[in-house]
């Protein structure tokens, strides 16, 4: 029996009534005189403070109006606006923008147009400004449309949050100042989209009614959130509506979970004030009491490892057996957070069978509709599709739960249960879903012979010496069994400067055939014998890697001179393709100069960090359609890093100037460079990355939504170019706080891994138990990559459910490190 059934039965009983004189007796106590009493609203103080200011403003406004109001024909002459400006000011905003963006030819001065556009933009709402941004961008990526999406599992949302609140939204303010500036500067085509993506900063004020486990200490009763909203989810909050919201906290900032398109919803569930139902959960709506209880129990299970006992367990078991899909689904989700789930397999089997039949029925209906047998109106068709999605997802999660509770279930019983469904003979599931189901069933069947995964045996290749490995690879290359790329890869890993016997192979076969051979020479085996061949190659084309190899082989001055000459060359301003190619070639040349430790080239490098130089390149690029904007930006970024490498302490003043840049990427790189040189000016900014909160910091999140995830701004420069004990420590500290896809980049750099392998492996094993799903995923991936082992860790399982696998990793890493 559900809570709501019991509640409605209890409510059906008639209550005792008070006596007929009750109301009169109470009201008879009213005092005879009535005084006006001040109402103490929360904003009372603010209103009192601002009231005199408002009065003063009003007074001055009236005086102003008196002064400017037309008082006669003479005055009209004084304030008369030039007719062309009046014409501009009266234009509809659409036409004004067409003129501003050069779609319509005009005789107006561009600065006058821009000023008029600014006035017009100030009168528009945030959404209207977003629409303009979308309309005038080359690749529209933003939209204020509401997005349809499949809600993320509530348990995942709860896992990612630190507390959950129920509250009413009092105010939502969208911050579109960045977009407005981009419209005025007409930078929508490149810079703006590259930096702003499809996220908008906002401020949301909430009146909090309740919180679980507790509300952080606040200055007032109001909770201010600083969310970054996806532009397709702007309607996630509406003024005056009530919501359940999963939140995180970073210092004074409280933020929502990020919305990641197609993967993750932000954990905001609207509450209908009239019906008391919560929507946005996974299956339709739920009574508020049930939803709140569900969230609290999930929180206890996921964050505190609370095992249900007595009444709580009975409550969830009753839900699991419910005829209502929502009830059953919440129970499945709840039990899936527990290890081991305290459920009899038969109960899960019953639920699976029950809803497989329901899914079957709906799928047949869908098929009939698709084939035109049963015409459904649009609304019903969508509802049917939604039902099928929900049932399929439930089915998927219920079979997951089944696979976790069937340790004791005989294989025959499972086989019988899925006999028909193994081949999905009813055609209910999509091809992928059917495949997944089959694999789950196979897993169930083999669970009886569950074996502990053992480390892979050592191969013959692994016991070879370094030189034997290289020679073996060369032999196989000559036999046609391996590619030249494989040989280079092995050489970059194992070749040492003293291995001169491989020089003839490199000279004869491949010295200039591939871009990575000069890198191999520079890094592993610099030798003067390569100089003639390198010079020959440099006559054809000057590249950063060839220059680096020439420098490493002893011809330092020659390499630097060639590099500076290359940077001094005038860029072709007539041919777009030539311009782009030349820009692209400059990048490795600048990086190379940074490694030379020759302070005489400092002015050459510094030149490329200057805003006016970069702006000139941007203007030229804009004439060719703005297609090389990325390379122009990269040129400045690489110059900042090169400045740090080459300039030492003398570069600090310029780097501090760069740290004040408006460009967040330049600021990050300047902060990294300063830190590399021993200066902590930018540490506050870097700490966002170290503490793994970059997904939550509004400024960075709004501007760098995609790039941050790739490690391009933070991990890559540290791991490759600005390596020092300080930056190494910074990167290791970042790993201790969490991992993301960008960290895989750092682990591609062998020298960093070699220097800190022991520490890194220990951190990665520790991070398998992280509360953050992304961290677990990348910790597992990097562990697999570094060791070549796979213990079948599943990052999607909740913390505490895979202790056995984590222990296997731990003991493997301990043994590995002992052997090393």
């Amino acid at each position, binding site marked *: *029996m559900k*809570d709501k*059934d*019991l*509640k409605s*039965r*209890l*409510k059906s*009983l*008639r*209550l*005792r*009534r*008070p*006596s007929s004189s*009750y*109301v009169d*007796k*109470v*009201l008879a*106590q*009213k*005092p005879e005189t*009535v*005084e*006006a*009493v*001040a*109402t*103490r*609203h*929360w904003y*009372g103080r603010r*209103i*009192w403070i601002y009231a005199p200011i408002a009065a003063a403003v009003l007074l001055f406004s009236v005086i102003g109006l008196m002064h400017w109001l037309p008082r006669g024909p003479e005055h009209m002459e004084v304030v008369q606006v030039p007719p062309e400006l009046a014409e501009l000011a009266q234009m509809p905003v659409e036409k004004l923008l067409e003129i501003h963006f050069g779609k319509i030819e005009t005789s107006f001065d561009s600065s006058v147009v821009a000023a008029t556009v600014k006035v017009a933009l100030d009168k528009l709402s945030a959404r209207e400004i977003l629409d303009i941004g979308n309309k005038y961008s080359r690749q529209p990526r933003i939209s204020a449309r509401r997005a349809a999406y499949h809600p993320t599992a509530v348990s995942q949302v709860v896992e990612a949050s630190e507390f959950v609140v*129920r509250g009413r939204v009092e105010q939502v303010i969208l911050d579109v100042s960045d977009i407005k500036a981009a419209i005025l500067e007409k930078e929508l085509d490149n810079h703006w989209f590259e930096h702003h993506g499809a996220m908008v900063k906002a401020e949301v004020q909430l009146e909090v*009614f*309740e*919180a*679980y*486990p*507790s509300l952080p200490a606040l200055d007032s009763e109001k909770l201010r959130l600083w969310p970054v909203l996806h532009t397709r989810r702007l309607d996630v909050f509406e003024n005056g509506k009530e919501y359940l919201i999963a939140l995180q906290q970073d210092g004074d900032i409280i933020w929502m979970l990020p919305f990641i398109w197609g993967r993750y919803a932000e954990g905001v569930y609207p509450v209908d004030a009239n019906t008391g139902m919560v929507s946005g959960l996974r299956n339709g709506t739920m009574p508020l009491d049930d939803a*709140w*209880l569900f969230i*609290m129990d999930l929180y206890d299970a996921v964050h505190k490892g609370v095992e249900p006992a007595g*009444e709580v367990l*009975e*409550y969830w078991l009753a839900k699991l057996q419910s005829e209502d899909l929502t009830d059953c689904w919440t129970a499945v989700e709840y039990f899936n957070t527990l290890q081991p789930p305290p459920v009899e397999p038969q109960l899960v089997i019953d639920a699976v069978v029950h809803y497989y039949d329901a899914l079957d029925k709906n799928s047949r209906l869908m098929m009939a509709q698709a084939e035109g047998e049963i015409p459904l109106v649009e609304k019903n068709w969508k509802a049917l599709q939604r039902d099928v999605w929900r049932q399929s997802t439930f089915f998927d999660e219920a079979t997951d739960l089944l696979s976790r509770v069937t340790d004791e279930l005989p294989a025959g019983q499972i086989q019988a249960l899925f006999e028909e469904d193994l081949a999905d003979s009813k055609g209910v599931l999509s091809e992928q879903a059917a495949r997944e189901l089959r694999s789950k069933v196979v897993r169930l069947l083999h669970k009886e012979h569950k074996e502990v995964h053992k480390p892979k045996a050592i191969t013959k290749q692994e016991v070879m010496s370094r030189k034997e490995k290289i020679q073996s690879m060369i032999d196989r290359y000559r036999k046609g069994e391996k590619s030249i790329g494989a040989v280079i890869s092995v050489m970059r890993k194992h070749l040492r400067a003293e291995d001169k016997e491989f020089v003839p192979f490199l000279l004869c076969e491949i010295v200039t055939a591939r871009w990575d051979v000069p890198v191999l020479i520079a890094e592993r085996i610099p030798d003067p014998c390569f100089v003639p061949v390198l010079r020959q190659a440099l006559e054809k084309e000057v590249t950063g890697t060839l220059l680096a190899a020439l420098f490493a082989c002893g011809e330092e001055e020659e390499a630097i001179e060639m590099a500076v000459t290359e940077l001094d060359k005038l860029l072709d301003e007539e041919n777009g393709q030539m311009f782009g190619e030349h820009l692209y070639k400059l990048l490795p040349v600048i990086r190379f100069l940074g490694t030379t430790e020759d302070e005489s080239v400092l002015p050459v490098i510094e030149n490329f960090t200057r805003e006016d130089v970069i702006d000139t390149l941007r203007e030229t690029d804009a004439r060719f359609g703005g297609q090389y904007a990325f390379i122009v930006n990269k040129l400045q970024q690489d110059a900042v890093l090169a400045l740090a490498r080459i300039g030492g302490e003398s570069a600090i003043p310029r780097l501090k100037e760069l740290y004040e840049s408006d460009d967040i990427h330049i600021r990050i790189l300047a902060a990294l460079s300063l830190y590399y040189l021993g200066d902590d000016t930018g540490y506050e900014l870097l700490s966002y990355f170290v503490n793994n909160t970059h997904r939550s910091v509004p400024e960075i999140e709004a501007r760098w939504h995609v790039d941050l995830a790739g490690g391009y701004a933070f991990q890559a420069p540290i791991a490759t170019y600005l390596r020092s004990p300080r930056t190494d420590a910074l990167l290791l500290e970042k790993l201790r706080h969490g991992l993301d896809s960008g960290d895989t980049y750092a682990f591609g750099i062998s020298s960093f891994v070699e220097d800190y392998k022991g520490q890194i492996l220990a951190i990665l094993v520790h991070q398998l138990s992280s509360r953050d799903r992304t961290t677990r995923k990348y910790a597992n991936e990097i562990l697999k990559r570094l060791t070549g082992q796979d213990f079948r860790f599943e990052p999607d399982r909740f913390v505490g459910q895979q202790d056995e696998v984590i222990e296997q990793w731990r003991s493997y890493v301990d043994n590995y490190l002992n052997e090393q």
Partner: protein
Amino acid sequence: MVQAEDTIVTSLENLFRKYSLELFISALAVTGCPERAEDAVQEAFYRLFRLEHKPQHLKAYVFRCVRNAALDQLERNRPVEIKDDEFIFDSSERPAETAERNEFRQEVVQAMKTLSDDEREIVISHVYADLSFRKIAKAREMSINTIWSWYRRGMEKLRRQLETKL
């Protein structure tokens, strides 16, 4: 900011007219006696009508005052034993009512007796006085989690005892 129209007495009168029954039931849940419940509400409003400032959360404040007055009643008088068939329910005979319904009411009263005072009071306040958990928590100056867990435990006990009757 002074709002001339919205005096505290008017607000209290409006609130009482709207929630007179719920206030009575809340007091009854504590005292177990209808006469004492009425007295408690009357006493509370005597004090409320003489307040100088309007409280921030008026509804919660009023329910807290009524509860306090009901507790005072309990302290001043001997506790009343809950009768088998009434408590907060109307047991006056109605020809249309079936024996089964009467029996169910008695079962509910019996089940209510097994609840702790806190559990019983929260269940009654939420189910019969339609008070949200937030309001109850404010009225009792306790955390919402405590209120929630009392409610849940109370409902669980009722469910177990009434399972066969539903």
